[in-house]
């Protein structure tokens, strides 16, 4: 452990000053969102603005739940994101296990294919993807969204899980086999528990990606009752006169699940990041 920086040195003041600027620049917009979402309508437009709500109200949230389909969007987001995470984790773990434990023809080619497709951006595939989905009659279904997200998250999930599986020593599995465990038992009782932190971290990155997505929903979903949160809120914003209080309360509610997961995963984050997590 390096010693803490002395606050009273010039270097110390510089570091603390920069850290404070960074924290304010990144956190203040969120504070402002929370503050606005608890202000009554007339206070939102007060000039000069109040940093904390002078009068605390939940009216913005009431309007959000009563006048919009926010709850439906929320349910859709939860369903689509969780299905994507489960599918991606099962398919991805199997794939990563195969890439790290078996030797077969074309393994390295598959690894490069994964790395190559990791760089794909949604806009590059979304137009032909839409035409194809329409052809097979899946346009405007959650299945189309789940397919898109699973395919899109697989490359980075595989890449990340592969790194995690590589760090689990083969000797442990061997020992289990010598003790009379079957291959499957060795995987279930030895490999998976050790890989769990990695699988959880990867799962949360996948969740964030699916939860935050805008473009696939915008293009693949047309019915209002099937929309997820991103598009739901964007459409509320574009609807008529902007109800800032309601929009801010909605934005806050979308952000909370992501930040909760994020706080939970933070301790795995830096390790995972080195192996190439997330995209976008």
């Amino acid at each position, binding site marked *: 452990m390096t010693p803490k920086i002395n606050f009273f040195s010039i270097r110390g003041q510089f570091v603390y000053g920069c850290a404070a600027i960074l924290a304010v620049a990144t956190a203040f*917009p969120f504070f402002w969102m929370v503050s606005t979402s608890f202000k009554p309508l007339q206070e939102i437009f007060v000039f000069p603005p109040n940093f904390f709500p002078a009068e605390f109200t939940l009216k913005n949230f009431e309007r959000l739940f009563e006048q919009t389909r926010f709850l439906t969007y929320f349910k859709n987001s939860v369903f689509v994101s969780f299905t994507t995470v489960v599918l991606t984790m099962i398919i991805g773990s199997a794939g990563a296990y195969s890439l790290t434990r078996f030797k077969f023809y074309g393994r390295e080619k598959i690894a490069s294919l994964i790395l190559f497709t990791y760089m794909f951006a949604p806009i590059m595939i979304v*137009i032909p993807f839409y*035409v194809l989905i329409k052809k097979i009659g899946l346009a405007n279904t959650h299945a189309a969204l789940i397919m898109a997200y699973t*395919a899109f998250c*697989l490359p980075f999930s595989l890449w990340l899980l592969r790194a995690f599986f590589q760090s689990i020593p083969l000797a442990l599995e061997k020992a289990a086999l010598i003790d009379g465990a079957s291959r499957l038992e060795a995987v279930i009782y030895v490999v998976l528990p050790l890989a769990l932190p990695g699988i959880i971290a990867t799962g949360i990155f996948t969740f964030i990606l699916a939860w935050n997505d*805008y473009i696939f929903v915008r293009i693949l979903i047309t019915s209002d009752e099937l929309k997820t949160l991103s598009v739901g809120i964007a459409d509320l*914003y574009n609807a008529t006169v902007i109800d800032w209080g309601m929009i*801010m309360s909605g*934005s806050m509610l979308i952000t909370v699940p992501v930040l909760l997961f994020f706080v939970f995963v933070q301790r795995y984050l830096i390790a995972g990041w080195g192996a190439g997590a997330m995209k976008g």
Partner: protein
Amino acid sequence: MKYNSQKAGILLIAPSVLLICSLLVYPVVYGIWLSLFKKHSFFPDQRFVGLANYGYLMKNSDFWMSVWYGTVYSVSTIFFQIVIGIIAALIVNESFKGRNFVRGVILFPYVIPTVVAIILWKWLLNNQFGLVNYLLLAVGIIDDPISWMGMDHIMTSLILISVWEFFPFVVLSVLARMQTIPPLLYKAAKVDGAGAFRRFIHVTLPQIRNVLFVVILLRSIWMFTKFDTVWLLTQGGGAEKYIRTLPVYAYMRTFMYYQAGMGSALAVIMFIILVAATTIYFKMFRRGEEI
């Protein structure tokens, strides 16, 4: 360990490969095919037109403007992301009180939904009620409110928001690498009398070079193809045509003019530009090391 088995290995990787090939690779290939057709986005009728879509675009000034805006947008956002990202990583690599808190907080912009980021900033930059204009007026930096979403400033606003949203990616990637630099190197440099700046140039920079290579590559690809941040900012301002980058233009052609063939041609052009730029980038900077 020897297992009975090529078979089991292939069986386990098969679903991944199948999904990636059918849902990622095939659409890209199909997009190339599609770009040779005049095709309506909703109705099934299509007519083979060869390279006519590309020919049309080459003579179209909107297309060239979108290439220009896209280049301005990606080059400037990448530059600021990298510079701010490295500085921020250096800061949070120091040990000070509350470091873990700051490390967590600076990642927020990257993990929240883009929709939220855009709405937040539209509110902060609102020309009548926005906090940014209020603060700038109060401090006396400006005399009249700035119209951040107007034609003169919308590109600046877009760059500001994008850098804010994406610089945490650089911080994390660089920080992860910085933590593996042996402290001994810094001690040795100190003994040799190197100041903070020279320690950065001669110790830190060579060590993070390979990570920077990858980070700049990924960020360039993703900024050049960034759709949602740009598109959502264009909504409801009237100045949308001043930030109409290539991805936004491809989207508009497909879903507002219903020209799926033309939209695909634009996506293919994006792909070609990226492959060309990446090849040049590798030739210029990669001197045979592993990334």
